């Protein structure tokens, strides 16, 4: 590939990757993005000599200034600084691409593309950033190396070391050589195919991969002491309804088929694996139901919690109904996390600040954020604002208390808990009657709840098809007319019916179950797993989960199938999860954990999973010494054979192949033929002599055909080291070679004839050729 083309290509590759990294953030307006794309594409052909760049430079300078003005105005009228800046960078890049001429222009293009990547770090937190950043590293490494060569060419190429024809006092024999060593002209070198080839690209490509690996290592090891003082990057999250302060029954569309992962949970046995049971991932709880809408009312009890801080980590221990206890009384109920199911949760940005955890959560552990203002937390929720997704730990007690204990629970309500008995006046009498009829005969609140749960599961049907209640009260419509609905209807109906029979209950929104990912051992919870259920209060035991929706616990985490496409989908999610876990949310805690793992690996510590794996590998190798030795020996033999083959090949490569010889220029062929003829007559060229020196030596010794050889040598130089020869030069070379051949034949004839002549005449015949051989 020509050097100039290679440099241009790598430059455009780097620009393309920077463009993709930025544009895939989905934050920029479509107009500038498309305009830039078209501009970049056209600029590829905007090259001298096709275009006189000087003539058009005013236009692009003007456009760049206009872009500055537009961006400044956009920012002053409330535009986002990063987005406005990114759009400006796009315009400037296009303007620069239209004016690229020297290495300096190319350097400015790289600076602009780099700034685009920097802007993308604030706008694009997706895996696409990592993917195209890798491409950018590869392309920009090539481009930077070629730029360095180009700039050095520009600096040295036009400064000849020696003016033509000036031997500068050098020895005459060397002057010709010196003249050949003049600085190269950049234009000629830009068209050279010898400077960079596949080997160069492969080598520098490997270097750029090493650079990327180095960047990744440095990324892991640079201490994370970030403060996030003035800036926080946002990440486009999942747009889903259902977790705001108010939720209208049937007010949002069907999301069951939405496969977007909203949360990934690492959890241990018995809740891990494809056979593990479903868990309810609790999020928002609603206490007030009015006119078909659930709300978090201002009367609802604030979340009772005790906060403990350890280093950079804050733990929120949920107290539930023990919130009113104080001092010694609370001490007796000190939060105990032993035996609780621990979950590491990676939550995507959902547009809500509520944190999810398996029912019922005992504690939430999150990174400290001292700048955050206290959130309005009610109904035992924990909230934390996040725009980039968040990682936190939850400790839960998924198993409900023993039924006997719940049956014995006294009917006592803590202060403020009467909101969980709230019923709006529009609840029809037949709903209340139905509830009373269903719970007839139930002795305890627990039995009532169970009876209602069973009734709803068994007598009504689950459907995702929405239907307007046509002005009727939605629960009444669901229970008596439509008799089918989705989870919100079931949970709302059960909550309302429980309240109508005097049992405190609340409606809860969250997610149910998920899909087990076998590649990285986590539960992927998708937007389609959104669910509603009921929590019932039992004095002394707290809140207990009831789920009246039919068919919710039948699947297990093994759903999603094991076909190729399902596996690929899970694999893709694993990549995204790893990106989120190891790049976006990589923090000091994870860094310290990684250092400890590395230390354990070197120490072979018992606690290290890597160390134990290594020990396992060693054990396996010692158990299979024979096969291991055979494999190692075979690999060594193959390596040695490969090495020998490559060595031999390299030696052969040093000699010109017959094919290469055949492909020589005809002038060179004629010259070499003449040289062979001369050598046969004893005028061989010594290895130390250049062709020109040889020609001069023959001229000095008055060798036959010396004058023709001098002319042929010059043609040979021109063909071998200059432009390829034209037909006239070839013909002349053939003529000269023929003349040399004739001169040699004549000389030979003369030599033979002279043997028969008297000695005196022989001496006068001129200088005899050298003895051959």
């Amino acid at each position: 590939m020509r050097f100039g083309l290679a440099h241009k290509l790598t430059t455009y590759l780097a620009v393309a990757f920077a463009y993709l990294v930025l544009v895939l953030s989905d934050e920029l307006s479509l107009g500038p993005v498309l305009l830039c794309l078209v501009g970049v594409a056209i600029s590829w052909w905007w090259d001298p000599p096709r275009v006189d760049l000087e003539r058009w430079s005013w236009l692009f300078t003007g456009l760049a200034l206009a872009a500055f003005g537009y961006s400044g105005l956009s920012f002053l009228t409330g535009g986002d600084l990063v987005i406005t800046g990114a759009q400006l960078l796009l315009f400037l890049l296009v303007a620069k691409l239209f004016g690229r001429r020297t290495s300096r222009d190319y350097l400015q293009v790289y600076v602009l593309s780099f700034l685009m990547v920097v802007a993308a770090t604030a706008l694009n937190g997706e895996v696409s950033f990592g993917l195209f950043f890798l491409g950018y590293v590869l392309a920009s490494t090539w481009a930077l190396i070629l730029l360095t060569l180009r700039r050095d060419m520009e600096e040295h190429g036009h400064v000849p070391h020696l003016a033509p024809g000036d031997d500068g006092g050098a020895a005459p024999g060397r002057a010709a050589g010196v003249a050949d060593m003049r600085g190269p002209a950049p234009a000629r070198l830009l068209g050279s195919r010898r400077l960079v080839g596949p080997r160069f690209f492969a080598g520098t490509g490997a270097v750029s991969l090493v650079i990327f690996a180095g960047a990744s290592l440095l990324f892991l090891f640079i201490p994370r002491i970030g403060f996030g003082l003035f800036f926080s990057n946002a990440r486009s999250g999942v747009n889903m309804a259902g977790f705001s302060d108010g939720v209208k029954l049937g007010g949002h569309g069907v999301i069951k088929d939405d496969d977007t992962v909203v949360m990934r949970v690492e959890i241990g046995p018995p809740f891990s694996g494809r056979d593990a049971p479903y868990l309810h991932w609790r999020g928002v709880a609603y206490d007030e139901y009015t006119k078909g809408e659930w709300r978090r009312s201002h009367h609802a009890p604030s979340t009772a919690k005790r906060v403990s801080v350890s280093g950079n980590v804050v733990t929120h221990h949920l107290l539930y109904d023990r919130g009113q206890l104080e001092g010694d009384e609370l001490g007796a109920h000190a939060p105990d996390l032993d035996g609780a199911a621990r979950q590491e949760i990676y939550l995507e940005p959902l547009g809500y600040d509520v944190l999810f955890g398996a029912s019922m959560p005992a504690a939430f552990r999150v990174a400290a954020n001292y700048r955050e203002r206290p959130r309005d937390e009610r109904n035992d929720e924990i909230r934390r604002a996040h725009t980039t997704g968040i990682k936190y730990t939850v400790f839960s007690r998924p198993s409900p208390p023993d039924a006997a204990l719940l049956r014995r629970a006294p009917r006592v309500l803590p202060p403020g808990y009467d909101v969980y008995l709230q019923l709006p006046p529009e609840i029809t009498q037949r709903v209340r009657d139905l509830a009373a009829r269903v719970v007839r005969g139930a002795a305890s609140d627990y039995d009532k709840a169970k009876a209602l749960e069973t009734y709803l599961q068994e007598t009504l049907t689950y459907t995702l098809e929405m239907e307007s209640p046509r002005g009727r009260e939605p629960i009444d419509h669901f229970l008596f007319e439509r008799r089918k609905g989705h989870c919100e209807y079931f949970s709302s109906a059960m909550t309302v019916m429980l309240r109508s029979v005097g049992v405190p209950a609340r409606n809860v929104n969250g997610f149910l179950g998920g899909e087990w990912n076998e590649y990285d051992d986590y539960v992927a919870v998708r937007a389609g797993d959104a669910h509603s259920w009921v929590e019932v209060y039992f004095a002394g035991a707290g809140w207990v989960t009831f789920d009246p929706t039919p068919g919710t616990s039948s699947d297990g985490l093994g759903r999603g199938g094991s076909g190729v496409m399902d596996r690929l989908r899970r694999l893709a999610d694993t990549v995204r999860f790893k990106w989120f876990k190891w790049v976006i949310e990589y923090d000091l805690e994870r860094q310290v954990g990684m250092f400890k793992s590395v230390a354990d690996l070197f120490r072979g510590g018992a606690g290290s999973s890597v160390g134990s794996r290594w020990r396992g590998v060693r054990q396996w190798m010692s158990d299979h010494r024979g096969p291991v030795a055979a494999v190692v020996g075979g690999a060594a033999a193959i390596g040695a054979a490969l090495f020998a083959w490559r060595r031999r090949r390299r030696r052969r490569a040093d000699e010109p192949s017959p094919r290469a010889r055949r492909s020589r220029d005809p002038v060179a062929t004629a010259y070499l033929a003449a040289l062979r003829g001369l050598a046969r007559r004893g005028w061989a060229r010594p290895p130390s002599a250049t062709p020109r020196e040889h020609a001069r030596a023959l001229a000095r010794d008055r060798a036959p055909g010396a004058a023709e050889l001098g002319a042929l040598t010059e043609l040979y130089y021109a063909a071998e080291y200059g432009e390829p020869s034209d037909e006239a030069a070839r013909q002349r070379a053939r003529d000269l070679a023929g003349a040399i051949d004739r001169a040699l034949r004549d000389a030979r004839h003369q030599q033979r004839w002279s043997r028969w002549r008297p000695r005196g005449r022989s001496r006068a015949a001129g200088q005899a050729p050298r003895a051959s051989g």
Partner: protein
Amino acid sequence: MKREGEASRRGLWRRLVGPRRRLRLTREGQVFLAMTVGIGLAAINTGNNLLYLVLGWLLSLIVASGALSNATLRGVSVRRRVPTRIFAGRPFAMEIALENRKTRLASYSIEVEDLLDGRPLDKRCYFLKLPPGRTQSASYRHTFPRRGVYRLDGVRLITRFPFGLFSKSREVPGADEVLVYPAVRPVALPAPRSPRHGDASQTRLGRRGEFFGLREYRDGDDSRAIHWHSSARAGRLLLREMEEEAQRRVVIEIDNGVADLEDEAALEALEDAVASAASLVIAYLRRGYAVRVVARGLEVPWSAGPSHEHRLLRALALLAPVSPSVAMSGRVEPGAEMVRVGPRAPASGAARAAEAG
């Protein structure tokens, strides 16, 4: 013993890490470093991990830059070919040959600068690509302003490869002494003393151009005079020696007496005189004269031909000012032309001062 141990440790270290290298930040490198610091501060401030990733990339580029520039300079050896004749005030081309001894890696974008008394000469040679196992040559043009012996210490290899952020250099030892002849200029020879001089040949030797004998080739001889047949037979270079026109003889007397060595004007005048003498030497020798040079404390006896030219120019290149009390060497030669040049001679530098005998 302890010192020896330290020295051997240092030697081992040097063998492991290679020769000492010097690193200088280029202008682009300064901008790059400023951007790296900026990105680092932004990463710390925002806690944005993607900025940490970009920072890691910038830092690893710096590391890779160091490793690749080392690889470029490693395994490269330099040879310098000094021209046989260098005259003061006249540009010459110094040839630099660079050999890449690596078996796999090409070296890119290497500048070579010659070091004179530890300082670089103003000109550099540039090698764009040096394939593995290959040797390439380039030359730089330089002019030494004054005659004398110059000591070239070694050469410095400089590269900005691969990213142009740093300029890394390595000095390669290789001392050479360069003898710079006095400046020469066209001179008009003084008219011969009498027509007899220059015309009559010695009967023993005959006219110039006639074969006289063979002798071994010496450095500075005209390669055109090599007798190839005889050289081939003898296995060494032999030169055709022509008859010497001994009757055309000239003595160039140069007064190198300077009373005050601090007197810049006197020293300059002496330099001018030496230049005139050198110009006369060349002019006379080219016309076939046998030339003898005398000065205070210096006498170069009669001879002619290219090798004598070298001898005379060498003597003039090294001629030092001495006290005027030092007597002029040599005796008066009867029947020879005599040209006297000296600081007190006219500015043209050449004047026939006297005729001996």
